[in-house]
C-alpha cells in the first residue's frame, strides 16, 4: 500500500509537470461539441425527447470518446518507465509488481474522473447542459465507473503488449471503435441494427446508458446502479486479469 501510494504520487507529479497532453485532450472536445450539438439535438427531439438540446448526448459522448484517449496514457506511463530506465529501479525496490501496476493506474483513474467532470463543467457553462432534475452525483458515479473500466482495459493492454506503438493502436482503435459502437458519437437510435446489438459489449455503451438516464430521463443514483455496476465489475475483472498477466521482468520497447 505504501509503495503503491509512493508510485501514485510520483505519477501525479509527472503529470503536473507535463500537462500538455491533458490540455490538448480538454481543448479538442470543446471544439467538437458545438459542431454536433444541434444535429444530435434534432435527432433526440425526433426520438421522443422534445426538450433535448443535444448537449445531453454530445457532452457525455465526447467525454466518453476522448476519455478513452486519456485513459490510454495510463498505458504509456508503463512504457515510459521503461524508456526512462526507471522500471528496473522500481522493480529492485520493495514494491511488488502488482503494487507498481496499481500505483500507475490509480492516479489515472483520478485524472480520468476529473477530466470527464471538467468536460461536463464546460458543457454546463458553454453548451447549456442541464441536469433537469437528474442527479449530478449519479453522473459522477457513471464517470467513475467508466474511468475504472477504461483504465482496466488499458492496464490489461499494457500488461500484454510489448511496444509503445501497439499501445497506441489499442488507444486509437479502442477509442473510435468503442466510442462509435457505444453511442458516444451519435445517439444509439441512429446506429444500424447490428451495431445496436454489439453496443452492449462496449464500455462506452454502459457509460452512455448511465448518462442518458441522468440527463435525458432525470435519473438519480438508483437509476445508474446497473450501468455503474457493470462498468466497475468489468473494470475490476480486467484489472485483476492485468495484475495476473503482468510480468515485471518483461521487456517493453518505448520507442519501437
Amino acid at each position, binding site marked *: 500500500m505504501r509503495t503503491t501510494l*509512493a508510485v501514485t*504520487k510520483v505519477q501525479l*507529479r509527472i503529470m503536473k509537470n507535463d500537462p500538455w497532453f491533458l490540455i490538448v485532450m480538454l481543448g479538442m472536445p470543446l471544439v467538437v461539441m458545438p459542431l454536433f450539438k444541434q444535429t444530435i439535438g434534432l435527432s433526440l427531439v425526433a426520438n421522443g425527447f422534445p426538450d433535448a438540446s443535444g448537449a445531453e448526448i454530445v457532452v457525455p459522448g465526447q467525454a466518453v470518446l476522448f476519455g478513452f484517449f486519456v485513459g490510454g496514457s495510463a498505458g504509456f506511463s508503463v512504457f515510459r518507465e521503461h524508456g*526512462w530506465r526507471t522500471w528496473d529501479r522500481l522493480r529492485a*525496490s520493495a514494491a*511488488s509488481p502488482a503494487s507498481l501496476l496499481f500505483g500507475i493506474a490509480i492516479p489515472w483513474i483520478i485524472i480520468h474522473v476529473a477530466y470527464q467532470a471538467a468536460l461536463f463543467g464546460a458543457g454546463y457553462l458553454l453548451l447549456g447542459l442541464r441536469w433537469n432534475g437528474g442527479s449530478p452525483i449519479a453522473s459522477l458515479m457513471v464517470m467513475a465507473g467508466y474511468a475504472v473500466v477504461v483504465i482496466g482495459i488499458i492496464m490489461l493492454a499494457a500488461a500484454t503488449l510489448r511496444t509503445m506503438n501497439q499501445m497506441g493502436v489499442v488507444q486509437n482503435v479502442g477509442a473510435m471503435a468503442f466510442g462509435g459502437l457505444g453511442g458516444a458519437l451519435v445517439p444509439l437510435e441512429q446506429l444500424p441494427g447490428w451495431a445496436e446489438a454489439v453496443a452492449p459489449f462496449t464500455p462506452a455503451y454502459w457509460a452512455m446508458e448511465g448518462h442518458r438516464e441522468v440527463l435525458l430521463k432525470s435519473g438519480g443514483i438508483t437509476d445508474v446502479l446497473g450501468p455503474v455496476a457493470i462498468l466497475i465489475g468489468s473494470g475490476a475483472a480486467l484489472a485483476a486479469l492485468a495484475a495476473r498477466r503482468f510480468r515485471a521482468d518483461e521487456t517493453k520497447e518505448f520507442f519501437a
Partner: protein
Amino acid sequence: MLVARGLTKSYGDVHALRGADLDVKAGQIVGLLGRNGAGKTTMLSIIAGLLAPDGGSVEIGGIDAFTNPRDAARLVGIAPQDTGIYPVITVRENLEFFGELAGLDRKARSSRAEEVAERLGLEQLLDRRGGKLSGGETRRLHTACALVHTPKLLMLDEPTVGADVATRVQVIEAVRKLAEDGAAVVYTTHYLQEIESLAAEVVIIDSGEVLAAGSQEDLISNHSLSGVRFVTDGHPPPTGPDFEPVEVAENTYRVVGDLQMPDLLARFGDDSSHLVSVETLRPDLETVFLAVTGSRLDDEVTA
C-alpha cells in the same frame, strides 16, 4: 552482509554465470572486475532480484533473497548501468521518491535527499528538473537515488562510465563514506584506478566464473606478472625457447617474464621496424587481471 553461492544463469547455449560466488561484509567495498559480457551485470541483477537465476542462493543481511525478495530488497540500493531518473520532476523529487519507495517517512526522506545531494555535489540543483541536468549531474543523481535510503548493501554497476573527473571523485567519495558508515558495497568498473583509490577487495570474473578474489595486495603478490605487450604491423614476431609471444588480439602479443624493452628489440633484430608499439607490463591490478583471465580489462569478450 551479502553471501551469494553458486549462481548460475544461461541464455540458451550462452552461460552468463557458471556457479559464481560473492561475499561482501558490512563496511567492505568489493570491486567486481570483468570484461564486457563477463557476467558482472547478470550477477548484480540476480542479487537485486531483477533476474531469476537458474541456480544458486543469495542471502542479504541473513535474509534469503529468493524466498523473501521484498524483505531483502529493503536492504539494497542499486544503481544499474543505464541511468534511470525521472526527467520531468526535480532532483529533490527524484531523491524523495526513491526514499519514499524504500520506506522513509516524509522528514527522513527530505533530510536524506539533502544529505546525499550534498555528498554528490547536487545541493545547488535540488530544484532543477532531472531532464535539465548535464550528463555528469544525471549520473550523480542516478547514483544518489541508490544511496538515499542508506542501504545496507549498495551495488553500483559502472557508476562512472562516461562521467567527468569531478563526478568520478564525488561518486568515489560517496561510496567510501557509505562503506565507512557500515554498508557493504559492490562496485563494478572498467577503471582500475577507482578500485585502487577505494582500496577495495577485488573479485575477478570472466566467462561467468569467479577466477580470483582477495585484497589487492594479495592478488598482486600471487598473480601479478611482468613482461611486455607489443603490437606489430602484421608481421609475425620471432619465437624461441625462452621467448613465446601469445597473441591476445589481432597483431597484439604478450610475453611474460623478466623482459625489458631492449631485450624485445634484440629479439626482433632487423625486423624491429615491424613493431608498432611496445608497453611494459608492471605488477599491478591490470597485470593481475591479465594473468588471471589472459586478457586485458578493456578487451571485448568474444563469443
